[in-house]
């Protein structure tokens, strides 16, 4: 069980619009480890956030909580490139409306 460590990277290609790239297995221990970066992200001002999930292979309730935190904080949060597995987790949790998929 030695998957590559989950990572979080933030870019701001257009002022006020953040692009968050998550990768790896977003589980309870990964979220605990990424907590300082997540808190720093939540503290940034932004009008809209796109979360790139293309590199995320696994998402548990803790990972989903991070996405939902972003949605509550920024309001406009779109998901880019989630795998079928991740998409199914989001749908089954009834939060597809809160975390819509977006292009790019």
């Amino acid at each position: 069980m030695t998957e590559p460590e989950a990572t979080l990277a933030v870019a701001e290609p257009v002022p006020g619009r953040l692009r968050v790239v998550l990768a790896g297995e977003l589980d309870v221990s990964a979220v605990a480890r990424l907590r300082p970066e997540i808190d720093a992200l939540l503290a940034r001002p932004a009008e809209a956030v796109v979360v790139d999930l293309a590199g995320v292979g696994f998402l548990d309730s803790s990972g989903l909580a991070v996405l939902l935190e972003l949605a509550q904080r920024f309001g406009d949060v779109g998901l880019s490139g989630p795998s079928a597995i991740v998409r199914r987790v989001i749908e089954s949790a009834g939060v597809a409306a809160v975390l819509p998929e977006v292009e790019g």
Partner: protein
Amino acid sequence: MVRPGAGALRRLGLLSVREGTERDALDGTGGDADSQPAATDRQRRAVVHRPALVALGVALVVTGALAWAASSSYEDNENRLLTLQVRQAAAALSAALPGLQTPLVADYELAVTGDDTQLRSYAASQVGPKGRFASVSVWQLGASPHPVLVVGDAPELAAHPARAAAFFAGVAPSATLHVAGLLDLARPALGYAEVPPGANAGLAVYAESMLHPATRGATTRGSAFSDLNFALYLGPRPERRQLIEATVPLPITGRQRMEVVPFGDTSITLVATPDQPLGGGLTQNLRWLVVGGGIVLALLAGLTAEFLVRRRRTAERLAAENDRLYRQQRAVAETLQHALLPTELPEVAGVELAARYVAGVRGMEIGGDWYDVIAAGDGTVVLVVGDVSGRGLPAATTMASLRYAVRAYVGQGDEPDRLVAKLDGLLSVGRDGQFATLLCGRLEVASGRLALVSAGHPPPLVAGPDDARYLTVPVGPPVGVGGATRPAAVEVELPAGATLLAFTDGLVERRGEHLDDGLERLRKAADDGAASAGSLLDDVLAQLVPDGGDDDVALLGIRRLR
């Protein structure tokens, strides 16, 4: 998996107990070397471990073998060199014979011609300190052989007519030098007689060499044989009374070689022994160098092995200690978890209830899964299965507050949909970093009418006698997410004899697998129509999480009796 409450409190530090008692309570590692008293541990540390002794032993055996090989090689080498040098010495000795015989033959020829003056002049060069002989004489042979001409000292043999007669009786003309043997008379001497082949003058030339007074000489230092000590004997055997000369006190002991060299009509036996190692001191001392070096290396090997063994033992002890701590932590988490879950389910006529909780093996923190069953008293039963995101105490305390809130709202008469909406006010993912999924249902026992609400939770399964299928329940957002409006409760009928199975996602979720595959696995596992709700739950757990899943699993079954 559940431990007695007192044990849990001890582990939590809420009960004060002695160290030993606490160790006894930790049956997970009990009986293991780790739980031995510290004194035994110290004792064990004082002894040398077996691998170190083996390494030491092997190294010493190798050292012994090498020393033996070095020693054996030294012996072989010394023997070989000695043989070689003794042969060379014997060859040198053989080469010396013509040097004795040739002048005597010349003397004889002069004696036969009767030119005494020339004979005396010639023989004079052969005697004295510079010559080989003490005396050279010409003898008239016959019944009583006697010297007729003498150059140098008077021959010893002349003083002993009987001996002279015996000697010259055996002297016939031949190419061979006749050796009179050792004349152990007034002065020890060696006599030689020469009568060349074909001679018929009745004369013989006789010479004597004095032996060293103490029959002891010394080989010249720096000569080819300076490393050897010799003893020379007349005749084919090393007999003491036949000793001509020796450079060491006799008898010769230790390493020695013997060569017999023809010498006139007899022979000389040469016995030689090394005065010092012929191959040099290094080869002699090599075995001791090997032994010394080998012992040092053996000790180093032993020490290294001991060091490695101890380091491994330490690592094993640490691993055992980590394992113990892990089990301890795990036990605390499980105990706390079970303390927060219903101790027993209510007895409700017309239904059979069963619940299970299996802690995940991956983490050692308490989870946020729960189940609950509340008999409402109006012939209905409210059932809840929920899951707070995350792990640890925050998840557990949120779970506990949600569980008791549900109980309170049921007490106030709230229907499932209203109840879930009210829970939203208790939790906010933005504030708490947590949300909770929840499946809440109210079953009218008599009719089987079942109202269900899902807040982001996996759908329940209905396992009938013949098949199992998921109920379609509209999924609203989880508790704590807010925003979206919640769908109304769905109403279905639970047939008599069927079991409603509600669970948390740990039962079906696998890394790298689509959720639908997990759901299908569960459906198939529940397809067999188990005899009771409890056995259905056990079957499902045995098939889906035989060794415990990664995540915690809460499982609730309610079977409507016929």
